[in-house]
């Protein structure tokens, strides 16, 4: 393994320019940062969101006329996976007070709080409970918890600035004022945040913060939160049931116009079944696996934007979905690590980005979107990208990690970035000696379903929480605010859903008329398509194998 001979040859060019670059850095001479005007120009010319064919106006549904990425538009302008006429609405398989769709951080927090209000809860989730983007978050969780230097006031300003001041003020206020409580709740549940001996929580800066308020648990903060929440639901097994490998594909209404459950799909037996519920919390997370503009992604396998589609068909609009967050440094080599996040901290520690000739082409601490646009420019317009072996037409640039040891002393890379150091070591690449090949990668769905600060939406009985929702981060989320978002709004949505379920009388006659209506709208808009959504799982099958899948008719569940 390791780099191919061709790449090793190219790395020599990086080695050659490195001593001079290190010297400049030591002397405090940085690559020229872009001016605000240049930044705008770079974004408009090279950021994927600004490509002329990037966005397309929706022709149906509550946000008709809103332009967003083709992949999203395709998902919205699709038919249901099930024919509404074939659903037996009188045959209900599960009944519960609150149905939570999605067993990630937001969903699990909602389930716990709803249960505390006396609700019986079902969590329906696509893969295993906890197989979610929440599990993958490494960096940390923001909250203003240190009264001698910080407050929700400053947190508010930071969130707004990060989101280009377009965020929903009410949502932001709720998030920053609930933040310390969210951390306190996790602490109470036994989350092992890094602490000083006196109990004081460690906090770090994140990009765009004016105070150090990023709380963390080692370099696996999300995993620590996720597994703790999951563990707690297992203690409440009497009241919280978890249905794994059972993604929801459509929502149910009743004849009083209230959301009343969902149609689930058993991935293993390929049958559909119904859950009737007095309130539903949508918490299906992000959509990196839609591979907007064919970009690779840092997201987990089940991040296919299902909740957006289900909620949209129900009549809930979307916002800030036009802005996609690309992380500038995703691994492109070796293939096994493709899309994997290389943390911003590597650039923070001084590593340059350089092209095929070993030349610097951008200041390494520009904001995420500028950095991404510059890398794309270098690989396209400028034509100085490094070809990715075995993947014709694909390019990357070098992230010169060996500089870090030269700047900060031997062993720094290994000490500061243990997870990535070990990972690349497995592929026989020593990132303290050779650079990493990287390219921007799809990271976060900035927008989503419109919801209020109590998690409610325009449809009674239907709540949304977490990455599936949009508004709190505006057009650009800052690192560490998402783990916060899901804990705060997961809890609030759980509380609202629990209360709603308690006060709601019996569920009326079940209906999927909203799906029929949506199909009709598609037809009226002249959208004649055999596309179906939600996607549920991405298709990474081998096309050559597919050509030999000759089955004409499904017999039983045998393909």
């Amino acid at each position, binding site marked *: 393994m390791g780099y191919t001979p061709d790449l090793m040859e190219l790395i020599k060019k990086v080695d050659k320019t490195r001593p001079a670059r290190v010297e400049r850095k030591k002397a405090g001479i940085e690559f020229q940062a872009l001016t605000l005007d240049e930044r705008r120009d770079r974004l408009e010319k090279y950021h994927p969101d600004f490509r002329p064919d990037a966005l397309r106006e929706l022709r149906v549904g509550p946000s008709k006329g809103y332009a967003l990425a083709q992949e999203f538009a395709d998902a919205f302008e699709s038919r249901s996976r099930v024919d509404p006429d074939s659903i037996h609405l009188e045959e209900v398989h599960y009944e519960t007070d609150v149905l939570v769709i999605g067993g990630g951080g937001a969903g699990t927090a909602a389930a716990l709080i709803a249960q505390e209000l006396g609700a019986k809860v079902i969590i329906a989730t696509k893969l295993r409970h906890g197989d979610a983007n929440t599990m993958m978050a490494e960096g940390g969780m923001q909250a203003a918890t240190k009264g001698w230097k910080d407050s929700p006031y400053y947190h508010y300003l930071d969130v707004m600035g990060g989101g280009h001041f377009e965020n929903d003020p009410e949502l932001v206020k709720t998030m920053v004022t609930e933040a310390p409580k969210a*951390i306190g709740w996790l602490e109470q549940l036994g989350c092992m945040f890094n602490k000083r001996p006196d*109990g004081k929580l460690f906090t770090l800066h994140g990009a765009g913060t004016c105070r150090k308020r990023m709380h963390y648990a080692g370099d696996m903060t999300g995993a620590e939160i996720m597994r703790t929440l999951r563990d707690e639901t297992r203690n409440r*097994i009497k009241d919280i049931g978890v249905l794994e490998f059972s993604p929801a594909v459509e929502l149910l209404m009743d004849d009083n116009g209230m959301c009343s459950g969902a149609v689930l799909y058993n991935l293993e037996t390929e049958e559909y079944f119904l859950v009737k519920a007095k309130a539903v919390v949508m918490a299906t997370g992000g959509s990196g696996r839609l591979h907007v503009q064919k970009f690779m992604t840092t997201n987990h396998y089940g991040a296919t934007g299902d909740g957006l589609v289900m909620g949209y068909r129900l009549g809930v609009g979307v916002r800030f979905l036009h802005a996609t967050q690309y992380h500038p440094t995703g691994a492109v080599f070796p293939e096994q690590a493709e899309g994997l996040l290389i943390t911003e901290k590597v650039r923070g520690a001084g590593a340059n980005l350089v092209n095929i000739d070993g030349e610097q082409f951008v200041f390494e601490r520009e904001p995420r979107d500028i950095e991404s646009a510059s890398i794309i420019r270098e690989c396209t317009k400028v034509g100085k990208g490094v070809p990715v072996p075995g993947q014709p037409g694909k390019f990357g640039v070098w992230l010169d990690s060996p500089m870090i040891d030269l700047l900060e002393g031997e062993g720094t890379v290994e000490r500061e970035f243990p997870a990535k150091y070990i990972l690349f070591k497995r592929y026989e690449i020593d990132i303290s000696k050779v650079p990493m090949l990287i390219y921007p990668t799809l990271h976060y769905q900035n927008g989503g379903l419109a919801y209020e600060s109590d998690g409610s939406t325009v449809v009674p009985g239907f709540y949304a929480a977490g990455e599936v929702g949009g508004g709190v981060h505006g057009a650009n989320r800052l690192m560490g605010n998402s783990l916060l978002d899901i804990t705060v709004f997961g809890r609030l949505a759980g509380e609202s859903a629990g209360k709603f379920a308690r006060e709601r009388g019996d569920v009326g006659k079940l209906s999927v008329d909203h799906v029929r209506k949506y199909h009709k709208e598609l037809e009226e808009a002249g959208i004649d398509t055999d596309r179906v959504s939600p996607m549920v799982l991405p298709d990474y099958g081998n096309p050559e194998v597919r050509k030999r899948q000759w089955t004409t008719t499904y017999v039983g569940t045998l393909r």
Partner: protein
Amino acid sequence: MSTAEQAELRGAEAASVEGAGRTDLVPIFIMGKRYNVPSTLTIQKAFEFAGYQLIRGCGCRGGICGACATVYRMPGSAKIHVGLACQTIVKPNMYLAMVPFFPANRAVYDLEELKPDAQTLLKYYPELAKCMGCNTCTKSCPMDIPVMEYISAALRGEIEKAADLSFPCVMCGICASRCPAELGQYNIGIMTRRITGRHVKPRAEHLQDMIQRIESGRYEEPLKKLMTADMETLRKLYVEREMEPHTADEMWEPEIKQFL
């Protein structure tokens, strides 16, 4: 021609058709059945290359969720190897199977009532006492966690040590699948971590202080001002906010204390 020979031939053919330009296909045996896959793939991607649509055994695809535990053996050796399918690169002629689920004992408990001692753990997981110190768990952990050590620490009542040692556990379940004493090590591990987080580590007092400050309503007015401020004012306040230096001491204080 024997079936094996034909399978091999089929492999060579696949190399020229599927691989277009790829001459690096190697045979692997998925649950005993031969497939020819590019030598650079992870086991997870090799499954997909072979034509599988993964449902079980695939979560984060990044080595942290523990969904893809895999066991394998190489020809000519009795040794059982383990790895995460999304992190392990195929080896020619490996015989492999995923273990996407393993039924380990999971106690139901009320965290508030737990104590950081061995008795508590033994009450919920009596099998803990049966550990025979064989070290199989440590040898089989894909995260290189000293599993037996955290189990013995737990048994000695060194809860915090068990918590720290087990911290990187991704709960893949391989240790439990191999344990002759039938322990579910990772469930015991998370119990020690939750006890540590809840009952051993001191509480963050500044956190409670801040919660009280917020509940006292002291930020309501300033926040309302921000929420209703026009764009220009907001931008100005944003640009002018005082920055805590990167190298500042923990107890650093800003000059402007009005909004704290």
